[in-house]
């Protein structure tokens, strides 16, 4: 199954990751409930992040070969995510050091600025239909080459995809620019 899932994801079959999720999610709910007292909703939320992280690592070529069982690998990522989540929650439950709070606040100020702009870009991405939705996904999220995108979406060749991708990016930039005005972007 391990090789099938990895090659499926690499070939752009998103369904492979959905099947992976469905195969192990119930085991993960039981395991995380027993080990970390996670309720079902939190367990599913963590496991979705686990599977997405796996998907992204395969896409980036970081997981061509795994030396352990797929389930062991996924649960190990899950364990780290749960521990981080518990630490994150505890940090606020017990109150942070006041010095830390100032630092966090300053950092957060930068984050807010950045993330509000992310929100605007995302809202415009949501409005973009095909072929931009698929081309931008395959190129920027799935790390496909132009040739692979041409194959996947049945374009004549990589150059056609390249031109279309440029049009999509320019259109996205234009929409975001209109939102902010010329001075801001």
């Amino acid at each position, binding site marked *: 199954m391990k090789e099938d899932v990895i090659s499926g994801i690499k070939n752009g079959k*998103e369904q492979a990751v959905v099947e992976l999720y469905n195969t192990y999610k119930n085991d993960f709910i039981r395991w995380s409930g027993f080990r970390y007292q996670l309720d079902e909703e939190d367990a599913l939320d963590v496991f979705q992040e686990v599977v997405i992280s796996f998907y992204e690592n395969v896409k980036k070529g970081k997981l061509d070969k795994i030396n352990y069982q797929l389930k062991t690998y996924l649960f190990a990522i899950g364990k780290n995510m749960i521990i981080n989540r518990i630490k994150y929650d505890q940090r606020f439950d017990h109150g942070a050091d006041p010095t830390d709070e100032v630092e966090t606040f300053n950092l957060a100020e930068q984050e807010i600025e950045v993330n509000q702009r*992310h*929100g605007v870009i995302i809202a415009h991405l*949501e409005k973009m*239909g095909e072929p931009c939705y698929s081309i931008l996904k395959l190129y920027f999220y799935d790390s496909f080459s132009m040739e692979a995108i041409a194959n996947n979406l049945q374009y004549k060749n990589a150059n056609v995809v390249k031109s279309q991708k440029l049009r999509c990016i320019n259109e996205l930039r234009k929409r975001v620019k209109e939102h902010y005005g010329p001075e801001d972007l």
Partner: protein
Amino acid sequence: MSDYNIDIDEVRDYLQDKLSSQRKQEIDKMIASDPEYAREFTQQKELVESMTVFYRGKLKQKLKAEDQAKRPKQVRSASISKRRWWAMAASVVLIAVSGYLLFFSDPSSQELFDEYYRPYYNVLTSGERSGEKTEMDAMSLYERGRYQEAITAFQEEIKDPSSQTALVFYLGLSYLAADQPLKAIENIEKVISGPASVLQEPAQWYLGLAYLKAEDIENAQRVFREIQNTSGSYQDQSSEILDQLP
């Protein structure tokens, strides 16, 4: 914006650690020494990062939909049983009102809601992590599907609804997910009548769904017709719903 013509493909490679260390050092040096270059690089970087967040959100929605797929079936079977009960009752009292039965052959507004409703992902992502506990918790609770707790956290956080429309939007969505459509409508309408924002389009879509959930067909039709007359991303789905409403 194009003084430097920073190549967005190179920015993608920079973020994915695919550049040579020499090229990466050159870019880092430019970012550190030239504010204009740094500004343009940041803008390109935001585009690439936003695409990652967007498509990751879509994948997460897809996985969540796998879990929710079971729920509509349960609702559907309950609704079907209800229909059968009505049909039996009608036959017992010999009231052959064919138009009435025909009415019940349309999907109910609840069934349509179940079919089309998907939680809207968090476009604010870590941007809400302002260091203020309640706000962060509210979005975090929303993302984890703990809507009743999210409602309480949002209520604590919202001091001025007119300037915190994003949080009012997610408060409305939390009410909708927690089966309180009237309160959802009240809050989502505040977003729509508030200052222009990118959340107004999804707000209108969820307003239509909230009316469906509240079984207020007349208002649902009104909202979906308004969406149908735009060229937004919910146009097709609104037309599909209108076709199925009585």
